[in-house]
């Protein structure tokens, strides 16, 4: 589900500290880009999409913790994506979809798919899935979560 890192944790921490722009939060402009891409991955319909379900918040919370090994990948990946597709945010939703479908396999977008799915479908305790949006969509909210459901 996620790539094997060939960096040891100690080496990684050194590198991550050297990365200037990324702490626990994306700045306003980067956040808009990430959130637009996430919304493409899980779009809103009659049920919340990635944006309303708080997938960005999931990512920010976890990048400060267990996902911090991906911090550099985000910094580099987003920078490359923005410079390659500078007009992306100005495009219509449908045109954005078309662009992403046509761009071929892209490591940055693949990483974002995984983390967006984690944020949307994972337990709210991890920082996403606001209001148990995905569980309600699937009709399984009473079975999931902290384990307080007792019997069928």
């Amino acid at each position, binding site marked *: *589900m*996620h790539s*094997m*890192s*060939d*960096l*040891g*944790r100690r080496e990684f921490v050194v590198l991550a500290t050297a990365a200037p722009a990324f702490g626990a939060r994306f700045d306003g402009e980067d956040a808009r880009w990430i959130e637009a891409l996430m919304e*493409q*991955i*899980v*779009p809103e*319909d009659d*049920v919340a999409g990635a944006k309303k379900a708080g997938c960005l918040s999931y990512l920010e919370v*976890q990048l400060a*913790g*267990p*996902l911090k090994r991906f911090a550099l990948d985000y910094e580099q990946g987003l920078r490359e994506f923005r410079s390659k597709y500078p007009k992306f945010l100005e495009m219509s939703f449908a045109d954005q*979809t078309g662009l992403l479908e046509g761009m071929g396999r892209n490591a940055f977008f693949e990483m974002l*798919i*995984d983390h*967006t*799915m*984690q944020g*949307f*479908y*994972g*337990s709210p*305790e*991890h920082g996403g899935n606001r209001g148990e949006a*995905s*569980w309600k*969509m*699937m*009709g*399984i909210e*009473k*079975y*999931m*979560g*902290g*384990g307080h*459901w*007792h*019997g*069928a």
Partner: protein
Amino acid sequence: MALDPVDVVIVGAGGGGGIVAKQLAEAGWRVVLLERGRTQNFSETGHYELRSQRTTVLGNAFGPDDERHVRVRQTDGGEWVKVLPSDGGYNNIAAVVGGGTLSYGAMAWRFLPKDFRMRSTYGALTGSTLEDWPVSYEDLAAYYEKAEWELGVSGKAGANPFEGPRGKGYPMPPLPFNREASVLAPAGRKIGMHPFPIPMAINSVPYEGRGACIQCPHCVGFSCEVDAKGSTAVTVIPRALATGNCELRTECVVSEVLTDEKGRARGVAYFDREGKLVEQGAKVVVVAASATETARLLLNSKTKLHPHGLGNRHDWVGRNLQGHAYSGAFGLFDQEVWDGVGPAARIAACDFNHGNEGIVGGAMLANEFIRMPYLFARSVRPPGAARWGKAHKDWQRKWYKRSMGIKGPVQEVPRWENRVEIDPRVKDAWGIPTVRLSGAKHASDLKTGKFVAGKAAAWLRAAGAIEVFETLPGRGVSGGQHQAGTARMSKDAKSEAVDADCRVWDVENLYIADGSVHVTNGGFNPSLTIQALAYRTNEKILASGHIPKRQ
């Protein structure tokens, strides 16, 4: 620092070590039980699915942690890369009191008689170290029974026509079928199969002071909210401690089995939770640290008399690493087949474990445990399905409750080349040389996997699935929670690591009580077999004369 010697020191408070601790403590021995993890309560981990034993994208709920542990793994391209415990390639098994049994799904299988006679049944296989066990099903039957009654297994005796002879039935009736099982039972019979309720170390009724299962769907990957699961953490380990003869020391990382000038084990060296190096002397040492860590410990315990590590005179320690080449299928249905009633895995069949034409071995087939929404989103899709976007979301919404999976732990044929060895460079946070893992599955396993997936698909179609897609194993060496084979039993001292009593061939007071000793690993979840062997090994230790008999 050297502590006062005790009778026995056990490395690993998991499925096997917990049993040996209880048996020896009850016999009056002074026991020290060392565990690298902690005692963990349900409230620490809950059912927070991204940090569990089912998916570790946010880390391992039950350890080990990414900060202090590392291994090395060979990629398909032959490169060595570092892997952390939360990476798939690490081959993790929970590092916690209870070990794998704290977070396992608790299927409690007896291997079939033929599983102990794979070489006799199928003959020599090129490229495989396929052998018979030096013990038979008949040798183990009474110990299986003891494990079933002490840990608490629910099931229906006689319902599996392929099972070996058993003395007593199960101590508890089976858990009731959920909707998936109710659909699969008649469908299986219709196509000539013999499905039955899965035997599980889960209380269907209150048992030995622990309550009955509340049928939540979170068994595999989580600890049990109500202690209905017969983990050693809530069964035999508390009983060991209650004797007053057993001391459990947690967060202790064993670095070496110590031996004397005659080549006998004299104890172990470990780092305590403050990082201090401690020597614990003992008359008998039992290693029960799982197939990867047990091999690592034996290989790291080099002396003049054991220049290649303990039990490793013939270079067999760490080899024959095996797990299960899981294979199966998912089916989509017009109607809802998911009802959220746990334990979700409720029905199995052993029609395809053996006797499959042109196939070596096979697998038990069972319906799947919980399909976590995130894992469902990432891995349960027919070929060509949308991987993101509106179509992906719609698929999730439409099919989650209208799908079910059947899969089986394909019995792998062991390979000499599939191995755990000491990495020449990389060390963990304690400075202990870590392992590197390498190898690939035998072509036979992939063939068996394809066969088993076809049978799973057929069962789903018989149950009314409108679309079926197979899931097949990858080529890489497996292990994971079912890891086994790295210190196998043998009849003579010319090969392998331990004798038929699970005693290391070249260290007369050193025993192994985990999956390492499995010659082959059955087409089943292996925990009950590890545990039955642990009961048997305990008797061998008691009879060995290392410790004078006590009243």
